[in-house]
């Protein structure tokens, strides 16, 4: 963190914890009697409470989307490039709400929270929550904040799935859904990668069937492997090639199996760092939420029939080198919206960074995002 905050930053922000006493019934049939949601907000809510934008996070995300928690913080929030004064989600015009989802490990109720029935942490007993459950909890959050209708619900990847689910679960409660680098359902290949990640975690001897906390252990190696394989799917062949190529850490081959190539040490570093900060049970839960998401399932696999429930307008964006959720997946979604006669705009943005491109600003991405959100802002300020 530099000595002063950049002028286009939302500045210093402070998360707050909101407690909900009303029970929440989940898709799995279980009920959470009460729960906490950790939330950050940026910008000001206008008089008629119509300028609120909800940010939904992806697999390993959390509530800290923009700004800094302190001057010592090395990096700003995870989507600081798109949220702030003058940025696509302009905090001079919007009241931005960002939360950590249920089941997360950054303060909202999840596997590391205390189970009121036992007095110990939930661990593996925390129910599997779905995208629909998250949206239900986010609707309770909107009620709490006095927001009847979001100007927009915005998310990338798993966050885009939440934006999509909002349009189906609460059609009247949002004006726009911005669905970036997402998909209407995972493919077999996507689920397969998730399974490798889960297997890496559950087969770690330190996992103890998810009760590692009770054993004072952490399945660090499993979590590290899970993140390493996940990370490969977030990048593209080209971007990895450009970043590392076949570069070695030292001059010559050592004819061993340590990290000799730069890409190996990068992946190990990413994995290690992640395993120190993320909860293994949360990782299992988040990947399962991805697997289960399939709004067409309830409509005989007819996505257009599902989409005809929606009332909001959509912006769908994909990235050319994203092979995790390819442009074809976004087009599948867009075509269902077209068939359902929903208002939708779509663009495939040329970017070399694979799935991660949704976090990295490029001129065209910024132009489109800004133009669209500018229009959303003009609508609510009339």
């Amino acid at each position, binding site marked *: 963190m530099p000595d002063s905050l950049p002028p286009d930053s939302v500045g210093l922000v402070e998360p707050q914890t909101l407690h909900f006493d009303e029970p929440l019934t989940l898709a799995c049939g279980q009920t959470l009697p009460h729960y906490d949601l950790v939330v950050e907000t940026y910008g000001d809510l206008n008089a008629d409470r119509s300028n609120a934008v909800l940010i939904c996070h992806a697999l390993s995300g959390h509530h800290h989307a923009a700004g800094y928690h302190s001057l010592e913080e090395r990096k700003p929030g995870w989507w600081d490039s798109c949220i702030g004064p003058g940025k696509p989600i302009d905090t001079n015009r919007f009241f931005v709400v960002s939360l950590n989802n249920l089941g997360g490990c950054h303060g909202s109720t999840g596997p590391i929270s205390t189970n009121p029935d036992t007095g110990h942490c939930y661990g593996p007993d925390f129910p599997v929550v779905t995208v629909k459950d998250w949206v239900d909890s986010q609707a309770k959050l909107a009620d709490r904040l006095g927001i009847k209708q979001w100007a927009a619900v915005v998310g990338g990847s798993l966050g885009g799935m939440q934006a999509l689910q909002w349009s189906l679960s609460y059609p009247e409660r949002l004006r726009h859904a911005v669905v970036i680098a997402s998909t209407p359902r995972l493919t077999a290949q996507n689920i397969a990668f998730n399974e490798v990640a889960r297997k890496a975690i559950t087969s770690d001897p330190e996992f103890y069937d998810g009760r590692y906390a009770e054993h004072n252990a952490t399945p660090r190696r499993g979590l590290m492997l899970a993140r390493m394989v996940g990370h490969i799917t977030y990048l593209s062949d080209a971007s990895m090639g450009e970043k590392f190529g076949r570069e070695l850490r030292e001059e010559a081959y050592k004819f061993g199996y340590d990290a000799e190539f730069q890409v190996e040490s990068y992946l190990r570093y990413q994995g290690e760092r992640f395993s120190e900060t993320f909860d293994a049970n949360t990782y299992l839960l988040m990947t399962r939420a991805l697997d289960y998401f399939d709004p067409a399932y309830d409509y005989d696999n007819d996505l257009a029939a599902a989409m005809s429930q929606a009332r909001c*307008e959509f*912006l769908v964006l994909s990235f050319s080198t994203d092979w995790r959720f390819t442009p074809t997946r976004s*087009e599948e979604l*867009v*075509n269902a919206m*077209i*068939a359902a*006669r929903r*208002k*939708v*705009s*779509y*663009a*495939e943005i040329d970017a070399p960074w694979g799935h991660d491109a949704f976090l990295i600003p490029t001129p*065209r991405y910024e*132009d*489109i995002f800004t*133009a*669209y959100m*500018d*229009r959303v802002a003009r609508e609510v300020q009339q």
Partner: protein
Amino acid sequence: MRADLEIIEKWIQPESHVLDLGCGDGTLLDYLQREKQATGFGLEINPDHITTCMGRGVSVIEQDLDVQGLGNFHDQSFDVVLMTQALQAVRRPDIVLDEMLRLGRECIVTFPNFAYWRLRWYLMRQGRMPESETLPYKWYNTPNIHLCTFKDFEALCYRKNIQIMNRTVVDSEHRYRWFNRLWPNMLGQIAIYRITR
């Protein structure tokens, strides 16, 4: 609004569901949405146009007709399918016309007339591929790879059993002149056809 768009607008019923192929900056769709409560989509490939459409609330889909076709749209899912000044630039205009008529009850197309007298004169006098205000390109860099005349277009419609509902001819400023009507294939610069099957 461009004069040809004003003519087209009159042929579109209120509350129509419209597909505009090559919608540009979305001027026509924006107008149809506001003044005629029309719904629908524009297809476009120019990034700046796409951004402009999104900023003005026109639903725009980035899709290249020549690469992706129109297979993602259902049969007879639109009241009107439009294509202004782009038919001559697609790889197979005949197939695009079939596709347009598959998607829409009616279609409206506009294109430049290669039999316009100035172009004939240019070719006769200079012996080179004509260049004009409406066709400001060299033969090697023109996007207009399938130029045709009004007669050519009507012959294609006849062969394909396409009915011509209306036909209007305008000049390069898109003004309607009496002499265009007198001898359209010689004196008309831009044709606007309303067709169905």
